[in-house]
């Protein structure tokens, strides 16, 4: 058997043993935060948590990295979309986790805030796009309400690769301009800055970190994930990565080279408005979230 390339212990991934892998992972996340200036002095950081491996790991690691920074506040926020079996289980785990780690957790639900539940309305619709729009809307609204200056997501390198290709295939370059370790194109007080500390970490690496830290017990896949366009793109990229190792890293590295140009290009295109219904920043008179809610409420 081939031993760890750093200390000769038993390897768990890519010729690194458990302790060398954890050191590698945490060091790379620290570097990502530093290099892209994701966290600044006096930030009030809200971590968007699903109870899954990515967001639980990012919450845990930020707490660990910044435990001595008295100027920073780190709290967690979760959205209950109303997906039985899946979200229920994950939120149960998350509540326990936050209690153990002494982290404030805020939970908001589609049912209470929008008067709808995903399971009840999903039959004829595209579940992931509806869920994504509504979840982003509620997260931004509540992050502002809680005076957060940064909204952290557990998005990893695989997620970003998928988004880049999805936008490319749909000829939606503007949406790609919003990507990156710090999302968005325009600075507006209506947006809470989103940041992705796991931007350079592979999904498999995050899973290994979560497994080694004991956050993988509740792992289960969203029942609607299988029917999404993203799932097809994900499978395609994974097959390509197996055949041509390094594909994912190359996609992100080259995207980061063109991202500043994209952000500059789209900064002055299109007017930023505020939704007449809810006041959220958007590109039309009514935001996409309010349009979806109105449509769904008409159906019920």
């Amino acid at each position, binding site marked *: *058997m*081939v031993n760890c390339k750093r200390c000769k212990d*038993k*390897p*768990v*991934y*890519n*010729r690194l043993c*458990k302790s060398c892998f954890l050191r590698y992972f945490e060091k790379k996340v620290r570097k990502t935060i530093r290099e892209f200036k994701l966290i600044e002095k006096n930030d009030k950081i809200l971590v968007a948590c*699903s109870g*899954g*491996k*990515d*967001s639980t790991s990012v919450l845990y690691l930020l707490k660990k990295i910044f435990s001595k920074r008295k100027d920073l506040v780190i709290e967690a926020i979760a959205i209950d979309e109303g997906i039985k079996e*899946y979200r229920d289980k994950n939120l149960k785990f998350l509540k326990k986790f936050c209690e153990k780690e002494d982290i404030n957790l805020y939970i908001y639900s589609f049912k209470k805030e929008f008067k709808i539940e995903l399971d009840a309305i999903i039959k004829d619709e595209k579940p992931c796009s509806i869920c994504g729009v509504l979840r982003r809307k509620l997260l931004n609204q509540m992050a502002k309400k809680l005076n957060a200056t940064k909204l952290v997501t*557990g*998005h990893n390198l695989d*997620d970003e690769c998928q988004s880049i290709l999805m936008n490319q295939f749909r000829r939606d370059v503007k949406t790609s301009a919003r990507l990156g370790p710090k999302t968005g194109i325009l600075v507006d007080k209506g947006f809470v800055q989103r940041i992705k500390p796991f931007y350079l970490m*592979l*999904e*498999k690496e*995050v*899973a*290994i970190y979560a*497994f*080694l830290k004991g956050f*993988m017990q509740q*792992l*289960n*896949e*969203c029942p*609607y*994930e299988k029917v999404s366009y993203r799932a097809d793109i*994900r499978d395609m990229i*994974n*097959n390509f*990565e*197996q055949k041509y190792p390094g594909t994912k890293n190359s996609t992100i590295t080259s995207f980061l080279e063109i991202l500043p140009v994209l952000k500059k290009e789209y900064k002055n295109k299109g007017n930023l408005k505020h939704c007449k219904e809810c006041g959220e920043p958007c590109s039309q008179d009514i935001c996409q979230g309010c349009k979806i809610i109105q449509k769904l409420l008409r159906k019920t």
Partner: protein
Amino acid sequence: MKVYIDRGNRNIEITKESVQDILFELKINPTTVLVSVNNKLVDINYKVKQEDKVEILSVISGG
């Protein structure tokens, strides 16, 4: 040896030795899974013994 896939949803008998061979036999892409042997994480070169409990866990989870 017994191989458990995704927390026992599938439980199959297999005779291959290395983790890499097992995944190949099952047509599973190694970039999408973690493999644990007797509850300990191992890399793909690990040689498995007949009495070992092998678990294959998907790394994919919807957000």
